[in-house]
């Protein structure tokens, strides 16, 4: 009899648990969708796009996640197939060193200007 009393609680526990894990999975899915470019659309991630191509890509991401691939492995797979351009996270290489270096350069330049101004004011 006691077990019957606890049954709803057990049921609730498991249903909550499963919905929680589902939510976690779809959060990861959405994160990956946002990081992959829809290469036949212009300037959209596959998360934003409803084009045929993007929908198929979303399905492939889901299949890969279900088969146990990690987020990083999925990015590597798509980069292998479509080139680095498909990822919204550009790698650091000879083509992109300017892109990565410029903010640092501007930051240093700004700092130098401020320091000089301060030095001038002190004098």
């Amino acid at each position, binding site marked *: 009899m006691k077990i019957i009393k606890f049954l709803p609680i057990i049921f609730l526990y498991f249903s909550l648990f499963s919905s929680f894990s589902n939510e976690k999975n779809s959060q990861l899915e959405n994160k990956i969708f946002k990081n992959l470019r829809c*290469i*036949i659309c*212009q*300037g959209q991630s596959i998360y934003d796009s409803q084009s*045929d*191509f993007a*929908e*198929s*890509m979303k*399905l*492939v991401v889901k*299949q890969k996640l279900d088969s146990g691939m990690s987020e990083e492995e999925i990015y590597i*797979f798509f980069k*292998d*197939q*479509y*080139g680095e*351009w498909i990822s919204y996270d550009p790698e650091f290489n000879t083509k992109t060193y300017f892109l990565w270096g410029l903010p640092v350069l501007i930051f240093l330049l700004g700092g130098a200007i401020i320091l000089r101004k301060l030095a001038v004011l002190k004098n």
Partner: protein
Amino acid sequence: MKNRYFFIIIVLFFFFFIVLFKGLKNPNVYIPELQKEKNLSRFEASDFYSNKKTSSLDILNDNNFYLINIWASWCLPCREEHDYLIKLKEQNLVKLIGINYKDNFKNAKKFLNEMGNPYSKILKDKNGTVSIQLGAYGVPETFIIDKNKKIIKKIIGPIDKKIYNEILLIIK
């Protein structure tokens, strides 16, 4: 001092102007690398007629050149290139594998009855996922696979006379 700042600003202005102006003229449509050799990744798909699941390893098992062609009955350029595919089949130098992309079975069968069937095997790609495993963009698209199971050429768009001759050169 002021002159120097002015000079730096002018230089920076021109630098950014030139960079952005050059960027304006670059096409912002993605152009994939077509010449790079790539390993064919393994994929699974169901057979067009029997619906039986098969893997790419079972299909590409001969020591042969293969041509994987993505097609659909609703795709007009596919009709244009179909004659070339039939011609390629008649040369007997290469095995053609068709991937029927997001198509209706009845229409696809009608297409083959009308235009001829150049494929030694046809796979179904109902939701487009098989083509993405291959790294395809849409229809029509053709991959040339060499004896080491490497993609040696990718043709985006229909095969025309020029590309047909190129394919012959490669597989001969």
